[in-house]
C-alpha cells in the first residue's frame, strides 16, 4: 500500500446506543485508486460512509481525511470538507421538485458565484459525461432508474471532488445499466484524478472495475485484496460471498432454537 492515503481509518468503533455496528475497522484509501467495500446487507457499510462524511461520529478510533481528523471538525470545517466530496446515495436522492439540469447545477449555484452561462456550460459538460445531455429538461420523475442514477452521478461530480463515494450504485438496476454505471465510475475516477470509495454488495460488477477490495462482515474486516487475489482466495466467507451460496459462514437461518423444540412447544400449547 502506498503511504499517501486520502482517507485513513484506524481502529474505528461505532455503536447506536448499545447496538454495536462497527468493531475495530482499519483501512486506508490511497489517492487516485478505486476501492470497494463489500459485504452483506446490514453489515455497516453505509455507516462507514457516513462516518467519513462526518454525518456520524465514531465511538472511538481515528479517522483522517486528507490529513485532518473528521470527528474533531467544527460545523464550518465539515462543510468545507464536504464541498470537496461527492456522494451518490443509494437511490440517487435527486431533488424531485427541480429538473435534471437544476439538480446538476444545484451545487454550483449553492457554492459558487459563477455566472449562469458558465454554469450552463459546466452542467451540460457533466451531463454529457454521463450521456444524458439530451435529458436536461426532464424532471426526475420522468427518468428510468438507471438514468436517475446517472444524473445523480453527474450531480456528485459537479464540483470536481477529490473523493467520490458511492452507496450501492448498482442496487435495483438492470444488467445493462449496471454495466454502464460501472464503466462510468471507473472512467470518471481516472478522468477527474479523484479517489473513489464504492460500497456495494454486487461482487461481479464491482470486481471488474476496482483496484482493491475490503470485505466487511458483522462490523469487521474479514478479508481484503486485489480482485485477482479475492477470486483466488480460499477464505470460506469470501468464497460464499463471491459465488453467492445460500449457506456458509453467513447462515441462512436467523439464530433460533432447534426446530424440533419449537414444534414441540407449539403442540404443548395446543
Amino acid at each position: 500500500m502506498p503511504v499517501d492515503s486520502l482517507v485513513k481509518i484506524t481502529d474505528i468503533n461505532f455503536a447506536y446506543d448499545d447496538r454495536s455496528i462497527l468493531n475495530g475497522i482499519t483501512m486506508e484509501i490511497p489517492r487516485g485508486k478505486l476501492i470497494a467495500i463489500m459485504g452483506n446487507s446490514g453489515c455497516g457499510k453505509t455507516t462507514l460512509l457516513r462516518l467519513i462524511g462526518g454525518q456520524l461520529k465514531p465511538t472511538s478510533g481515528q479517522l483522517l481525511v486528507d490529513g485532518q481528523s473528521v470527528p474533531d471538525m467544527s460545523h464550518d470545517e465539515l462543510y468545507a470538507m464536504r464541498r470537496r466530496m461527492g456522494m451518490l446515495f443509494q437511490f440517487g436522492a435527486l431533488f424531485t421538485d427541480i429538473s435534471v439540469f437544476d439538480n446538476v447545477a444545484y451545487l454550483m449555484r449553492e457554492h459558487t458565484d459563477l455566472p449562469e452561462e458558465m454554469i450552463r456550460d459546466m452542467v451540460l459538460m457533466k451531463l454529457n459525461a454521463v450521456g444524458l445531455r439530451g435529458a436536461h429538461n426532464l424532471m426526475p420523475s420522468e427518468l428510468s432508474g438507471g438514468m436517475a442514477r446517472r444524473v445523480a452521478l453527474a450531480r456528485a461530480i459537479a464540483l470536481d471532488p477529490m473523493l467520490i463515494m458511492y452507496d450501492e450504485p448498482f442496487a435495483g438496476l438492470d444488467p445493462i445499466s449496471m454495466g454502464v454505471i460501472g464503466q462510468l465510475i471507473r472512467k470518471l475516477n481516472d478522468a477527474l484524478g479523484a479517489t473513489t470509495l464504492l460500497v456495494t454488495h454486487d461482487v461481479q460488477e464491482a470486481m471488474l472495475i476496482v483496484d482493491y477490495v475490503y470485505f466487511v462482515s458483522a462490523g469487521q474486516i474479514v478479508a481484503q485484496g486485489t480482485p485477482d487475489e479475492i477470486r483466488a482466495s480460499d477464505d470460506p466467507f469470501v468464497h460464499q460471498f463471491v459465488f453467492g451460496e445460500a449457506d456458509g459462514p453467513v447462515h441462512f437461518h436467523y439464530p433460533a432454537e432447534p426446530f424440533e423444540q419449537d414444534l414441540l412447544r407449539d403442540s404443548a400449547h395446543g
Partner: protein
Amino acid sequence: MVEKSFSAVIALIRGIGHRLNTGLQRLGFAARFFVMLLVYSGQSFRRFHLTIREIYFSGFQSLLIILVSGLFIGMVLGMQGYETLQRYGSSEALGVLVALSLTRELGPVVAALLFASRAGSSITAEIGLMKATEQLTAMDMMAVNPIARVVAPRFWGGVISMPLLAALFSAVGVFGGYLIGVVFIGVDEGAFWSQMQGSVDFRFDVWNGVVKSFVFGVAVSLIAVFEGYDAVPTAEGVSASIKRTVVYSALAILALDFVLTSFMFRGL
C-alpha cells in the same frame, strides 16, 4: 389474578411515563430546532427568492379556499346575525356584528385552521418526503444546510402569508355579510357601514386581529416544518406526521386564541 392486574397497572404507569418522556424529548428538540431555524434564517434571507417561492406555494395557492370560505362565513354571519338582531329591533347593527366577529375572531382563527390543513400539511409532506428519500441527507452531505435551504424559507413563507390571508378572509367575509344583509335582506346600507365604522376600531379590533394571525402563522408554520423534519422517514411515518401537523396546529391555534384574546381584550 391480583398479580396480573398489578402488573397491568405497572405497565400502564410505565406507558404513561414513556409517553411523557418522549413528549418532553420532542418538545426539547422542537425548541432547539426553532433556535437553529432562527440562526440559519439570515443565511436563507440572503437568497430571498427561496422564500418568495414558498409564499407562492403556501400563500398564493391558498387564496381560492380562503376567499371562498371567507365569503360563505360572512354570508352565514349575515343571515344568522340578522335573524337574532331583528328580534331586538336593531338589525342596523348587523354590520357591527359581522365586522367585529370577523376581524377579532373568525378571520384569524378560521383562516389559520384552513391554512394549517391546506398549506401546513403540504409543507410537512414535502419535507417529510425529502427526508424519506434521503434528499435532506444528500443536501447535508453536499455541504448545503437543509435548515437554511429547505426549512427556513418554508417557515417564513408561512409566517408572511398568514396575516395577509387572514386580512383577505375578513375583508371578503364583511363583503359576504354586506351581500346578504344589504343586497338580499335589505338592511339600510348607510346604517350598515356607518355603525360598523363607528364601532370597529382600527388599533383595537383590526390590528389585534393582524397580530393574532401573525402569531398563528408562526405556530402553524413551526409545527408544519418541525413535523416534517422530525418525521420517521417511511411512508407511514410521513403520513403520521401530516396527521400530527393538522391536529397540533388546530389545538395550538385555539389555545393561543384564548390566551391572546384574554390579553388583548381584557377590561374592554
